[in-house]
């Protein structure tokens, strides 16, 4: 058994300022094994891979590779490649305007002279042996995404790799392409390559993988044979809720009393966007708090982004208070009284160099119009009001928002939308990466706003939080809405069962 091991990582530690990203993680990969690396946001998957490929240095721990007695130290991606570790990322990192063969050989070999004929011949041979439908002299851009990905894999294989890391390779592929990719993965497995497979799709894990390693909050949860870990257990491991814990949970759940004759504040039918989510129906009533739940990448953010017009909507209808409205861009949604606190605060939320005041008033200002700026006094009044109301800790309203802590930044974004007095507010992971105190404050605020008649959709990775705020949950798996839970059904075990798709 021991001599089958190609890669062993022992007691890996890695810290970033303020975050302990990896704490004593072990990982073992054998020859001819497809090994899934699973975990939710912040679990440490990508940090582990970046340590392995030399993008980050490790703080502590050892890495052993087959054929070498001593622990190796990998300081750069080039060294990782030399040690036989290759990575294929979700985004293609090849050059689309070069040929397939050029892409396979670019940057390899040190000779100035290049024998093109020989190179094309060698490339053709590899492509054939791996059964990849591509011509060596074809321009890479003219291949489908799946083939491009396979070319990247072929390049890695040809570089004599023992360990192949596939980081979310399937997220932009359709089902048939995924099948092809899986076939290639099984071929490589048969040749003895060890494959680390990172994905969000549970079905795919159970289709091709032999083993699963689960990480959570930078710690190793465990390594399991695929047969020993049914889906629902995997989900519970990833979310950090043991099943036996959840069976004895108290039956305290929120309910929403729908009054007769009340129409939904927002209702969608067959809505879908260019992000790949399957058409979904959704509704929310005034004063209701509901939520989208599912694993990372299951499509929960994509659904609310479609409602807000943040992604390009391909079809379906949205009704506001029973009337069909057209939402094709965020401004349309804002005019219809929808607010959206985005998932990624830094990229989509804050406008870093602008002051707290400007960040708070901007949405309302944009709604009010280009030619009607608020006076400084008005802007200050709004800012001061919400700084006080939400308890935003900032030196002054003039402070650039980027110098605030994450929780206070999030409160500013919340203030921005509350200021527009929306009828429907979408909060996508409002509590991610912020302290416990602020988390509870935000939850309380959500319930208070709902009691005043606002419809709120709340998304969180933490099921406890969802149960503490939502009276109805829409469950997503692999870009599909797979269930809706309310009343008695709102329990952790039920949610995890639905996410996992029942015992399979």
């Amino acid at each position, binding site marked *: 058994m021991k001599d089958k091991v190609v890669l062993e990582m022992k007691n890996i530690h890695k810290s970033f300022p303020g975050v302990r990203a990896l704490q004593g993680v072990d990982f073992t990969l054998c020859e001819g094994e497809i090994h899934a690396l699973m975990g939710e946001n912040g679990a440490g998957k990508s940090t582990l891979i970046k340590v392995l490929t030399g993008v980050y240095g490790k703080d502590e721990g050892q890495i052993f590779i087959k054929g070498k007695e001593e622990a190796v130290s990998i300081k750069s991606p080039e060294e990782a490649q030399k040690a036989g570790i290759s990575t294929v990322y979700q985004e293609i990192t090849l050059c689309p305007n070069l040929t397939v063969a050029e892409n396979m050989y670019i940057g390899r070999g040190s000779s100035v002279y290049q024998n093109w004929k020989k190179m094309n011949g060698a490339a053709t041979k590899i492509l054939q042996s791996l059964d990849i439908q591509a011509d060596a002299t074809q321009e890479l851009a003219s291949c489908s995404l799946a083939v491009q990905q396979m070319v990247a894999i072929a390049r890695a294989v040809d570089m004599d790799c023992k360990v192949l890391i596939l980081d979310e390779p399937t997220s932009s592929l359709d089902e048939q392409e995924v099948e092809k990719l899986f076939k290639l993965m099984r071929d490589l497995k048969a040749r003895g390559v060890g494959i680390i497979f990172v994905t969000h799709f549970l079905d795919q894990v159970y289709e091709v993988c032999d083993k699963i390693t689960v990480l959570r909050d930078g710690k190793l949860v465990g390594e399991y044979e695929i047969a020993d870990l049914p889906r629902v257990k995997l989900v519970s491991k990833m979310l950090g809720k043991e099943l036996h814990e959840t069976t004895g949970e108290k039956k305290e759940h929120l309910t929403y009393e729908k009054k007769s004759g009340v129409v939904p504040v927002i209702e969608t039918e067959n809505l879908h966007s260019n992000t790949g989510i399957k058409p979904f129906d959704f509704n929310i009533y005034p004063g209701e708090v509901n939520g989208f739940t599912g694993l990372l990448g299951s499509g929960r953010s994509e659904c609310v982004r479609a409602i*807000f017009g*943040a992604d390009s909507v391909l079809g379906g209808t949205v009704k506001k208070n029973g009337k069909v409205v057209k939402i094709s*861009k*965020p*401004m349309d949604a*804002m005019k219809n009284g929808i607010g*959206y606190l*985005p998932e990624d605060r830094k*990229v*989509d*939320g*804050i*406008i*870093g*160099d*602008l002051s707290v005041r*400007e960040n708070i008033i*901007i*949405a309302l*200002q*944009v*709604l009010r*119009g*280009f*030619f009607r*700026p608020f006076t400084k006094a008005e802007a200050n009044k709004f800012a001061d009001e919400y700084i006080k109301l939400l308890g935003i800790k900032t030196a002054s309203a003039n402070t650039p928002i980027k110098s605030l802590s994450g929780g206070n930044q999030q409160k500013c974004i919340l203030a*921005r939308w509350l200021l527009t007095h929306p009828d429907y507010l979408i909060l996508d992971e409002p509590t991610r990466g912020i302290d416990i105190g602020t988390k509870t404050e935000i939850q309380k605020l959500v319930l208070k706003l709902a009691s005043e008649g606002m419809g709120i959709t709340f998304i969180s990775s933490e099921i406890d939080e969802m149960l503490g705020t939502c009276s109805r949950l829409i469950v997503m798996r692999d870009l599909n809405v797979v269930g809706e839970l309310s009343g008695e059904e709102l329990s952790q075990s039920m949610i995890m069962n639905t996410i996992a798709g029942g015992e399979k």
Partner: protein
Amino acid sequence: MQTKKSNYTSISEMLGKLVKQQIFIPVAALLLLAIFNLIADPGFYKISYGVNSAGSPVLSGYLMTILDYGSELAILAVGMTLVTASSGGQDISVGAAIAIAGSVMLKFICGMNTPVIIAFLAACVVSMFFGAFNGVLVAHFKIQPMVATLILYTAGRSIAAWINNNELPIVSDPKFAYLGGFIPGIPIPTPFFIAAAVVIISLLVLRFTNLGLYTQAVGINESSSRLNGLNPAFIKFITFVILGLCVAVVGLIKVSRLSTINYSVIAKDIEMDAILAVALGGNALGGGKFNLAASIIGAYVIQFLTTTLYKFNVQSDALPAYKAVVVIFLVVISAPVVRDYISSIGKKISHKEVA
């Protein structure tokens, strides 16, 4: 000792605050140049009162030259600052666009005998059209601004020559020359008043619209701006159109100075000075927050530098090399790496003081 020390720290703190002000950079550069000239030759500041060829009273001297030619740059700096803020890039076709604007004006005044105002309005429309052309390339096709404007930079002067069939018409109306020279009875160069008008209008626009907030928001975080209901592409587009308007105004001054045009040399390399003015104003060339006043002071500083160099008999073809030295200095000291280094040294010194 105790009080002396606290005095010292409060002064250094004040200085620190002052240094952090964006407007400090161009003002400090201006002071540096002024002191240099004062020491090298106080005659630099001599202003004489005389009568020009048209018989009207004029003030002349190096300072008047700075006021005169710096005004062209100040007008361009307004537009360039907005373009920089929203798109995070610069328009290098400004000089060529000025040639086009001037050519259009001459075509209207000499070719069609229209009043100057009509000719100017026509030039505004054409310049805004070319600004819109650049704007579409940058905002809609997402081409890097310098690359997008390279097209007009290359083609602009040929287009300008083509408009007038490569002829060089001359405006005979002596009143036309007032715009780039002096209005009878007023001894201060007219371009200064034009620049003042442009600056006042742009400050009013910033005050009474959301142009400033929107351009900065888009320049800082496009994705977030979009989720707040803004249309980033349109805002970038608009800033290029506004720069087009500034170009037309400078074209008017330029043509008026000579009453004619030389397609290949008019406003040559002026875009570099305009960009430099923005940079000298302490505005990030990568876009985002801007300070219009700082850019405008920056424009006059650039002209101050040019005039100083002329005074010291630097050949006009050697001028760019001297300017380049200044630019290197400015760009290096405003680079984040250097700023961090300086502030770390500052911290060390204050540490030692405390110890």
